């Protein structure tokens, strides 16, 4: 916006109050809230992760600086390494493979179908997205349970039941997260695919290009930017997933679904090691910050 309101002179010829002061007043409430509850905790994360802060006991009273002790302990902790690995598997399966690929496939298949059919499928997919995370967890716990719907179907077609949440816990939480998140990617890709000029596709088809060729040579290059941006955004959302896993498996059985948020929660609030928990959250935060910087770059916004 290039409007310069300070140069605006009213009928009476008096100059409006200086912009700078007004800007400060208007921006003050958001500055205060963001500094106290957003920037503050981020700085505290860095600070606390170098202390022996605990929730109970003598260490709760006096905080001591312990240097890199938390981080040394963390990198020595087999549980931490497991959590990093679990987080990568969860991100790869549910965000990149699941939401991103399935969302793109849905958007691609829905393009050009009958309006009424598109709408029905769209509503079903979006229903999973609108449903709150905790209810998503209930639906899937019931669906995958020993005597749940999936095993009922398996029995009906002559297969034996599987204890999904115990035998395949990671696959189970990934599927639930895909169910919850795919609609977002689908809507993003639908909007992006609508921007691909139909004349271009038709011309290529008339020239004898196969459907696959039209997709790889024309459609994909045009929506490339959206794919990158969406991938980072979905990765960031998936990185922060706590409720779904916590409700479905609690991170278990054992450590099989213990992603970094679950590990962080357990260390901080179950084992009462806030300092250690904060060090873990710093790792999450650093990954988040790096991904967010890529996100801003990929957006190519004009401000």
């Amino acid at each position, binding site marked *: 916006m290039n409007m310069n309101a*300070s140069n605006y002179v009213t009928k009476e010829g008096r100059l409006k109050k200086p912009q700078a002061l007004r800007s400060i007043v208007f921006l003050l409430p958001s500055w205060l809230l963001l500094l106290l*509850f957003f920037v503050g905790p981020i700085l505290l994360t860095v600070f606390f992760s170098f202390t022996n802060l605990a929730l109970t006991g003598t260490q709760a009273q006096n905080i001591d600086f312990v240097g890199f002790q938390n981080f040394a302990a963390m990198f020595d902790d087999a549980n931490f390494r497991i959590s990093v690995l679990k987080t990568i598997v969860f991100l790869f399966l549910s965000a990149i493979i699941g939401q991103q690929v399935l969302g793109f496939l849905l958007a691609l298949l829905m393009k050009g179908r009958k309006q009424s059919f598109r709408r029905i499928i769209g509503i079903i997919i979006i229903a999973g997205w609108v449903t709150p995370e905790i209810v998503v967890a209930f639906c899937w716990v019931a669906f995958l*349970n020993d005597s749940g719907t999936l095993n009922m179907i398996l029995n009906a077609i002559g297969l034996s039941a599987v204890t999904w949440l115990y035998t395949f816990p990671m696959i189970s939480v990934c599927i639930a997260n895909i169910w919850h998140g795919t609609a977002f990617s689908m809507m993003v890709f*639908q909007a992006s695919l609508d921007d691909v000029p139909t004349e271009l596709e038709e011309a290529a088809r008339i020239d004898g290009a196969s459907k696959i060729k039209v997709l790889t040579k024309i459609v994909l290059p045009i929506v490339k930017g959206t794919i990158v*941006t969406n991938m980072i955004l979905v990765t960031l959302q998936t990185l922060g997933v706590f409720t779904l896993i916590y409700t479905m498996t609690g991170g278990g059985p054992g450590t099989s679904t213990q992603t970094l948020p679950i590990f962080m929660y357990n260390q901080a609030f179950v084992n009462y090691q806030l300092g250690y928990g904060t060090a873990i959250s710093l790792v999450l935060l650093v990954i988040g910050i790096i991904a967010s910087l890529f996100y801003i770059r990929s957006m190519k916004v004009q401000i």
Partner: protein
Amino acid sequence: MKKIKLEVAVPYIILSVIGVCFLLPLLWVIFASIDENAQQALTLPDKITFTNYTSILSDPANIRSFMIGLGLSLGQSILVVVVGVLAAYPLSRYTQKYKKPFMYTILFMTSLPITAVMVPVYQLFVFLNLQDSLFGTMLFLTASGLPYSIWMLKNFMDSVPINLEESAWVDGASIWKGVRKVVAPLMIPGICTVAIFTFSMSWGNFFVPYILIQTPDKFPASVTIYQFFGTYGMVEYGKLAAFSVIYTMPAVVLYLFSQRFMSQGFSLGGATKG
């Protein structure tokens, strides 16, 4: 001929199969909620009853948790919109040096996972003596929703022409009055989108109140339903399903309502955070 027909049919078949897979887990919660003898597997109820609903709604503790959730989310939405509109005004109307880095910081904040800061936020709440305070929780939720709302509201405000405002000033209106009487009414679709989005995010948020609130009497619906699941989840399927449906309703209704404002479709330009 046959080959062409197959080519037309395949996408419909694939989409139908995916659709059924997505529908099945959801159908359970709906059927079980109206079935007195609900089991974990999906079954058609013998007869439709609403006893599950009445039993959830007749518990004053559940009603209280719905009210707390409503107050928390509504309060947060109002604060986010008011503070967001205030911040968006100078960012949209004035040219200033710090504007560009500020907007980049805001965009950056929209995508950071809140989960990562919850441990220090808990510590901060203990330090400020705000732990177990619903008001404090609302302020934190407001701050976490602000980056997205400032970003969206600034973009919406950019599309409101300044001439209308100028004529209001000529008529003697103050800047603040101009915002309230001219800019805000023209931004109603944008304000509603932000308010609905904020409300839904807050209503569905379990982690933040679960960490910051300790007294069961103060739990919003998201935490109460989790407690219910922990206590009766493996026995009272029908009631859990009914509780889930009631709890999901506001999100569904608001989503349908928001469709009226989001006619231009779903584009990444708005930094949408799901």
